[in-house]
């Protein structure tokens, strides 16, 4: 297969690192410029008269509620930091969850039987 061109240019670790950097840059530098307009569902709710049905969020007082870090007065920095926190937490939780289910799978009795 040596004649086939090799599009693979990144090692796996480098690919993950590059992807995370892109996610962090988007979350920190770009997200503070995101549109504050209502999204599709909220716009429909406003136009069709059921926006008032919305209730306060149970965790509305959380220190990062609304993608703003409490205590950080600069709006752009506050949103950017919330983005960094979100990227770090989602990476860890999703990776951790997959590692747990993967290991549980491998060590289950059914898997111990050769097939």
């Amino acid at each position: 297969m040596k004649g086939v061109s090799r599009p693979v240019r990144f090692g796996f670790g480098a690919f993950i690192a590059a992807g995370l950097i892109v996610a962090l840059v988007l979350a920190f530098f770009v997200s503070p410029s995101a549109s504050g307009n209502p999204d599709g569902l909220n716009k429909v709710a406003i136009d069709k008269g059921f926006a008032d049905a919305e209730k306060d969020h149970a965790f509305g007082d959380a220190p990062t509620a609304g993608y703003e870090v409490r205590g950080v007065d600069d709006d752009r920095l506050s949103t950017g930091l919330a983005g960094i926190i979100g990227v770090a937490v989602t990476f860890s939780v999703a990776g951790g969850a997959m590692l747990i289910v993967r290991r549980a799978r491998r060590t289950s009795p059914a898997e111990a039987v050769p097939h």
Partner: protein
Amino acid sequence: MHIPDGFIDGTTSAGAAVVVAGGLGATLRRAGEVLDERRVPLAGLVAAFVFAVQMLNVPVASGTSGHLLGGALAAVLVGPAVGAVCVSVVLGVQALLFADGGLSALGLNILNMALVTAFGGYAVFVLARRVMSRTPSSVVVAAGFAAAVSVVLSALAFTLEYAVGGTGTASVPTVAGAMVGVHVLIGIGEGVITALVVGAVLATRPDLVWGARDLAIDQAATSHVAEKVAS
């Protein structure tokens, strides 16, 4: 598309949460079967990337914004089961840490934005690929098309939930028309961004694209490495 508390009544929301908990459990088991342990960080990256791009609302029409849902993108990159888990994690983190998407509506939101987009989107992707040639560019086009359709499917899922337990007084056909109308626009953006991202991954690490496994791009080199790691 994140449903806040109150749009859908408590009974419907709780019922959806029970059904989704069961579906998510089965999805987790499936994800554990298909994900190579070496590639676990890829699931983390997909979740983190979807979280980041979901923050990027862009104006789509007068007074309306939209952001990537990412379910179809995740499904094409890591498979529908792992992809659905990734987006579910994103939705859980958004509801618990950032007060985005109601707690009572978390089941509904996972159903609409993780399960429907990942599994529904992936089904569309597979069907679209069947009518196209087996080339990397077909994967890109099919991914974009599937992503666009997945947003409309998600909007229809909300409409169905509104029909069952909506607290509003607007008629179901009215809500259906408005939801589909605006989400066709958002879906076009979803399709373009999904195609760009899938194209970028295909250009750098095609072996990491679940939806392109049949193309066997440079599989000889990568599977050789995989065997060494596995042994």
